[in-house]
Every structure is written in structure tokens, then in C-alpha cells.
């Protein structure tokens, strides 16, 4: 049986680049096919029927025609435009950070429905004005889990001994916690407080509603951010550009109140 020429799919638009005068090359994440590239013809024209439906940070239903090299988006309907999020600089930047992570960590045509749902839920949470720090850390931890990089938090990743309630270390290279003894042989490991380890263990296994009940002090929040982003950067072997932008915004004291809504 031949493959159908058209297919319909939900998609989160990860990024877009201009292609020629009026077209856009989209990178989208779908539940059935994973990451895809597709052309939105005429999307830059003011009267385009695709226009706003194929902007990054949008959840749309797309009808796509198979092309010889690249597929072509023929129809679109917005399912959620995350309007609250887009009216706020800090939350928009948080959303763009999640899109960049998914784009960097995924390969084309490698589907993961759980990853799609994680990204969609995260965007809904950012849109609903929740606690962005917890939302982002929960997203990072579960993204690592779905990609097969779940950090080992139960025992020492080197000697397998049970961890004592003292300051241990996190090794991005070995993908987990090192006991105080093993940490001496791993110079790149970051010290990890007991509270940070407990929080990571809880978030790894609980749902978001439980995760958001954790009261994060600024020091603990910053420690969790450093550990998780350090691990993500180690796996990617490159900087995460949107993370650097979020840092700049923090220095400018851009927070949740900066926006039009």
C-alpha cells in the first residue's frame, strides 16, 4: 500500500527561518513523527492563511503534503497560541528556552509522544503564570528522562554505595551523584546540597502539581539550575543560547511583571 500524500498532525512550532521572499522553513515537533522540517509557502505574506499559526510557541493542527525533499504545510488551525505567555518578556523567553532544548536534543523523525506532551504541558504552565523556575527545572529533569539521560540520584554512580545525607557531588560526565569519597577523583563534579538532592529525587518521580508545592529558596533554585543546565550543556557539548539570554534578563531584573498583560 502506498503512503498517503497528505497527513494531519498536531505540532508545536519550534523555530522558523525565512526561505526566499515569502516562504518559511519550519521546524516542528509532532506526537506521531517527532521533529520534522516543513515549508510554509507564502507564510510571510500579510494575507497568508498560515501566518500566525506557524509562529514559534504555537500549538497548531497542520495538514501537510509529502514533498520530494521537504514536506509542505497546506492548511493550519491554531489550537493554542499561548497569548498570555507571548505578552510577557520573561515567560516568552522561558518558552523559547524549552523550544531550543527540544530542538537541540531531538533528531528528525524520531517520535516521542511523551516528549510532545511534556513540552505542551510546560508551555501551558508557562502560559498560566505559574512558578517559571520550577516549571523549567521540572521540564529539564523529565526531558533528560525521556531522552534516556535520567540522572542516577539513588546511589553513587561510581561505587554504587548508598548516599549519606551530606553534601555529595553531581557528575555530568557520569550522569549522576557521586559520594564524597568518589567525588575526590572527579574534578568536574559540582557539590550538591542535601536539599537539592531531595528536591531532584522528588521531582523525578512526582507529578507537576506535587512538584510545584516545593518552596524554593533563591539559593536552592540557583543550585538546581546550575546542576541541571551543567548536565544539559555537557550532553550537548555546547552552550544553550536561550539560557544565556535568560541570565541576561535576570541581571536586568526582568521578571514576570514585564509585559503588556
Amino acid at each position: 500500500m502506498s503512503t498517503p500524500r497528505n497527513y494531519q498532525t498536531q505540532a508545536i512550532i519550534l523555530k522558523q527561518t525565512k526561505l526566499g521572499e515569502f516562504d518559511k522553513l519550519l521546524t516542528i515537533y509532532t506526537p506521531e513523527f517527532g521533529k520534522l522540517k516543513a515549508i510554509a509557502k507564502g507564510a510571510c505574506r500579510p494575507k497568508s492563511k498560515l501566518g500566525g499559526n506557524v509562529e514559534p510557541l504555537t500549538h497548531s493542527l497542520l495538514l501537510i503534503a509529502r514533498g520530494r525533499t521537504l514536506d509542505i504545510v497546506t492548511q493550519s488551525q491554531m489550537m493554542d497560541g499561548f497569548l498570555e505567555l507571548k505578552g510577557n518578556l520573561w515567560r516568552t523567553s522561558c518558552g523559547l528556552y524549552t523550544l531550543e532544548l527540544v530542538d537541540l536534543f531531538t533528531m528528525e523523525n524520531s517520535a516521542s509522544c511523551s516528549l510532545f506532551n511534556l513540552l505542551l504541558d510546560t508551555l501551558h504552565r508557562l502560559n498560566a503564570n505559574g512558578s517559571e523556575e520550577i516549571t523549567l527545572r521540572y521540564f529539564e529533569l523529565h526531558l533528560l528522562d525521556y531522552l534516556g539521560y535520567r540522572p542516577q540520584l539513588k546511589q553513587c554512580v561510581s561505587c554504587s554505595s548508598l548516599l549519606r545525607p551530606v553534601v555529595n557531588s553531581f557528575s555530568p560526565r557520569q550522569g549522576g551523584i557521586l559520594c564524597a569519597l568518589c567525588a575526590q577523583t572527579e574534578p568536574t563534579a559540582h557539590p550538591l546540597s542535601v536539599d537539592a538532592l531531595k528536591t531532584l529525587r522528588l521531582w523525578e518521580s512526582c507529578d507537576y502539581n506535587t512538584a510545584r508545592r516545593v518552596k524554593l529558596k533563591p539559593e536552592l533554585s540557583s543550585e538546581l539550575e546550575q546542576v541541571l543546565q551543567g548536565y544539559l550543556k555537557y550532553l550537548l557539548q555546547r552552550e544553550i543560547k536561550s539560557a544565556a539570554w535568560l541570565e541576561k534578563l535576570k541581571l536586568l531584573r526582568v521578571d514576570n511583571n514585564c509585559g503588556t498583560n
Partner: protein
Amino acid sequence: MSFVAEPVARLVKEFSKLPGIGPKGAQRLAYHLLRSSDEEARALAEAIVDLKEKIMLCSICFNITDRDPCPVCQDEKRDHSIICVVEKPSDISPLERTGRYNGLYHVLHGTISPAQGITAEELKIKELLSRLQGGSVKEVIIATNPNIEGETTALYLQHIIAPLGIRITHLARGLPFGAELEYADDMTLNQALEGRQEFE
């Protein structure tokens, strides 16, 4: 062995570097110039050389110009208390065509795009802030494109200009003339409803 004379092959190669021009198109242009008169060919060559030699950025608004400051910034009849901020030099001519705007401009030369590593430092934002320091500017119109990068830039500008106490506005958003309501996206419709106006 090449079947085309070297000067023609060189011109074809140069034309094919231009956006939207493939090898066949480049060949067609080269042969067209070969057939055209010496004056026409020389006028084209001089126009290209002038473009690179005489064009510069205006030191005030950063629009492309052949004299510094540009005619818009020098024009005393224009309203110097309003600055319209645009992404790129080509955004100015559509605004000028309307004949409704009589203020000055400021060209950012890009938009903030965190994933591409383009942040405020890469744009002419610092220069915009120094223009606003004098106290003579009463309003800044943000005319970035209505897409995610344009909106991020607009929100950032709003954040850094607001403490100066200058009025900040942005171009109205909504349905373009000739569009169909049925196909409009949620964001556009939302903004069109918010910005609805009385019939005059």
C-alpha cells in the same frame, strides 16, 4: 577546456552568488549584458561600485544613506520628538509611502532571537537609548514585525525605555486589508478585538 570566454564565465559566477539567481538565470543576465550597449553596461557597473563606495549608515538613525546625517534626520520640518523604531532599513519606505508619519526613525538592524544568540548587544539599542537621553523625545513608536522575535524585541524595548518616562506605543495589530476573518489566527483576532474602534 572551457567553452565560454573567461570574462563571461566570471560574470556568470558573480551573478549566481546573488540571492534567487541560479546558474541559468546568471547566464541569461550575462548574455543580456553582452548584447546591451557599452553605456548600459557601464551604468550598471558604476551603480554597483557607487553602492559600495558611497553608502553608509546614518550616525543618528542608522538608516542607509549617502550623506551623514541622512535627509530624514536633517529635515527641520519633521517632528523630532517622535522616533519610530524599525527592524531594518527597508521597513522605512512602506511607512513613508503612507504619508501619515512625520517623525524620525531608528533602525535596529535585526531583532532579538535568543536561540540564534542574537541579543540586545548585537542591535542598535544602546544607540537608541543615548538618543532618548536628551529629553527632547516625547514618544517612541515600536514598529517591529508582529512575530515572536519582533514581539520579544518590542517587550524588551518597553522594559528598558519605560524608566525614562517617555510615551511608548506600538503599531496597531489586527486584520490586514483584503484578509478573511475565517482564516485569521487567534492572536491576530484577539488583538483586532482589543484594538476595535468606533465608526467615525
